[in-house]
């Protein structure tokens, strides 16, 4: 059991948990994830880490309440415990002094980008950070990102705050020499960013979030095609060269269980009460 020591709501339905897990905290690095399971009959859900505090012995992660499990997770409060937290899983991000690094975080993945931005900064890079969301209400960590970045930009799909869409990235990329781009967010965003940087020959690392079950290389649910070869998101990734990823296949594979996910959410809504009680045991 892993105790929640801090809970906060960063934006509607986007919640942050700081969880006591000293062994995981001691080993966790930016780019890695944990597998969380909330109850005996629950599913195993991968969530990218946002921070690891070795002194406090805690790890932090952020999730968006979109499906049954994340909603159930959102019902837990400070002082409650999570049944299973397994990690750190996946390979740590490559963090070194590259020169100028452009960090693009979108949606709920703005959160783990903070871990990355902070590490890139510590490694001595000039950090340009861009965060984006559908609408301005879904933006968060603006102050934290600003404080750690040499340049900081905001974008929304509807233009309700900052730039509208990601077209402005072209100007940023044209304005100065950028040595590396890292992107975390929805697949469509990763694809847009990768397509922009490819003609410029700027190495672009994207964090992929395929469906996973065990998260440690056993099932292959998370397989992605990179440079024409099948890789496992969990043990070969989750970060890959954005110029080599087959994004269309990734989107198709992410949608494999959409009808079932909807059914589970509906089931949880209608008779969720029973389920939640059962899960507290």
């Amino acid at each position, binding site marked *: 059991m892993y105790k929640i020591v801090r809970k906060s709501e960063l934006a509607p339905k986007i919640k942050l948990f700081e969880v006591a897990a000293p062994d995981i905290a001691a080993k966790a690095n930016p780019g890695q994830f944990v597998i969380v399971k909330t109850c005996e009959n629950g599913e195993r859900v991968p969530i990218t880490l946002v921070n690891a505090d070795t002194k406090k012995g805690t790890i932090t992660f952020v999730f968006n309440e979109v499906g049954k499990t994340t909603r159930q997770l959102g019902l837990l409060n400070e002082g409650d415990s999570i049944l299973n937290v397994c990690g750190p899983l996946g390979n740590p991000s490559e963090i070194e002094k590259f020169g100028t690094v452009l960090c693009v975080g979108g949606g709920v993945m703005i959160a783990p980008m903070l871990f990355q931005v902070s590490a890139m900064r510590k490694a001595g890079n000039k950090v340009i950070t861009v965060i984006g969301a559908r609408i301005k209400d879904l933006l968060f960590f603006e102050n934290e990102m600003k404080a750690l970045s040499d340049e900081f930009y905001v974008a929304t799909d509807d233009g309700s705050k900052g730039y509208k869409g990601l077209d402005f990235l072209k100007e940023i990329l044209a304005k100065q020499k950028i040595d590396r781009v890292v992107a975390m967010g929805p697949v469509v965003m990763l694809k847009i960013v990768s397509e922009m940087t490819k003609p410029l020959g700027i190495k672009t690392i994207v964090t992929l979030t395929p469906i996973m079950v065990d998260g*440690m290389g056993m099932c292959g649910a998370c397989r992605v095609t990179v440079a024409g070869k099948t890789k496992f998101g969990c043990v070969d990734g989750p970060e890959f060269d954005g110029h080599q990823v087959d994004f269309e296949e990734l989107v198709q594979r992410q949608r494999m269980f959409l009808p079932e996910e909807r059914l589970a959410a509906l089931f949880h809504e209608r008779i969720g009460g029973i389920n939640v009680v059962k899960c507290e045991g």
Partner: protein
Amino acid sequence: MSNAKAEQPKCPQDRWHAVEMPKQDPKVRAHNFDEVALGYTEEQALTEAARCISCPKPGCVQNCPVELEIPAFIKLVKEKKFDEAIRKVKEKNSLPAICGRVCPQEEQCQKTCVMGKKGQSVSIGRLERFLADREMQKGVTAPQLPSPTGKKVAIVGAGPAGLTAAADLAKLGHRVSVFEALHLAGGVLVYGIPEFRLPKRIVQAEVDYIKKLGAEVRTDALVGRLFTIDELFKQGFDAVFIGTGAGLPQFMGIPGENLGGIYSANEFLIRVNLMKSYLFPEWDTPIRVGKHVAVIGGGNVAMDSARCALRLGAEEVCIVYRRSREELPAREEEILNAEEEGIVCKFLAAPLRYIGDKSGWVKEMECIAMELGPPDESGRRRPVAMKGSEFIMSVDTVVVAIGRTPNPIIQRTTKGLETTKYGTIVVKEETGQTSLEGVYAGGDIVTGEATVISAMGAGKKAAKSIHKYLMKV
């Protein structure tokens, strides 16, 4: 136990015939996940035990990887001393309810049974299961343990090898901690073997027994990532046993393999067995099985996958195997069970590519017919593709069950640990010791994918060596 109607077992006409074990009717069981084989009654067990002639030089014992004293425990069954009989079994085997169900006895103890020369061998596995189930119903008590040695052993992986090593070392008075990466202990017994062949409550009960012996089981702990082997020694462990198994799925690397509806057998079985997706949506993890399922491969894992697919509502489940029936590596009993349930086999065929629909879901599989050439290094005749024999099969679900490879994480994160080109860990045959002092290994991580009982045998052997090593240190 199941409410389903059981088939009436045939009575033995003479001592050369074994007492059949009652099973669920194939038509009924093809639609449920309850256990297929229902176990002997006391009367059946006594009748079967009476067939053992207690040979002075028993072939069965020699052929048992854990050297179970088979004639001795069967003699106790004959005398109706069931409590003593299970104690006798447990002297050598800490997981009898599991072994009684999933050991390939026909290849081991029962293969060399003297009764088998003229008739059918004594059903050793069924008797073992009878005793273990009977004890479980009564409530299992742990034996008296020796005083603690003060030595600590870390076991990496709570599968058959690790659990056996843990039990033996705990019985010798060592403090044992078992590290399991998944959220449940049992390894392949919980994620691989289906409920209808090995109910998970049985595995849980065996794990509980090992806990009763004093072993600590720590789940969610992926050694290699969370702690390295070096760090385990720094934490105060005096020896380490690695039993991390062969859990990585293999794919064929043919076009279209990443289409929707194509699962590795591991993913398919993990979803169904570990995550209980047959109970979705009460259990959260989904699985989708269409009407026409193809399972690629011919081992026990292929049989298990096919039988799960049938139970999940498939109209037709076809095993596609590149050799012929004779070469099927699955246990004969499992092949018969699968056939009885209506699984069909397409022999001498192999997939070439998968074809998807607009949404990226598999709809067809192009195969090629094979013929058998001269034997290969495995001794089985090598399948050779027949030019121009390509054909199309309509499928909407495919399970790729062509074998599993060793888990690589310990090998990658442990300096100085000698491995083979296949990624298995090199050990000394007699002791199970690796290239590192105090580090032992056994099971699939050493041999590559094999059986539960051979992993248990390796766990047992390593436990003996670890004990020797610790008491000398």
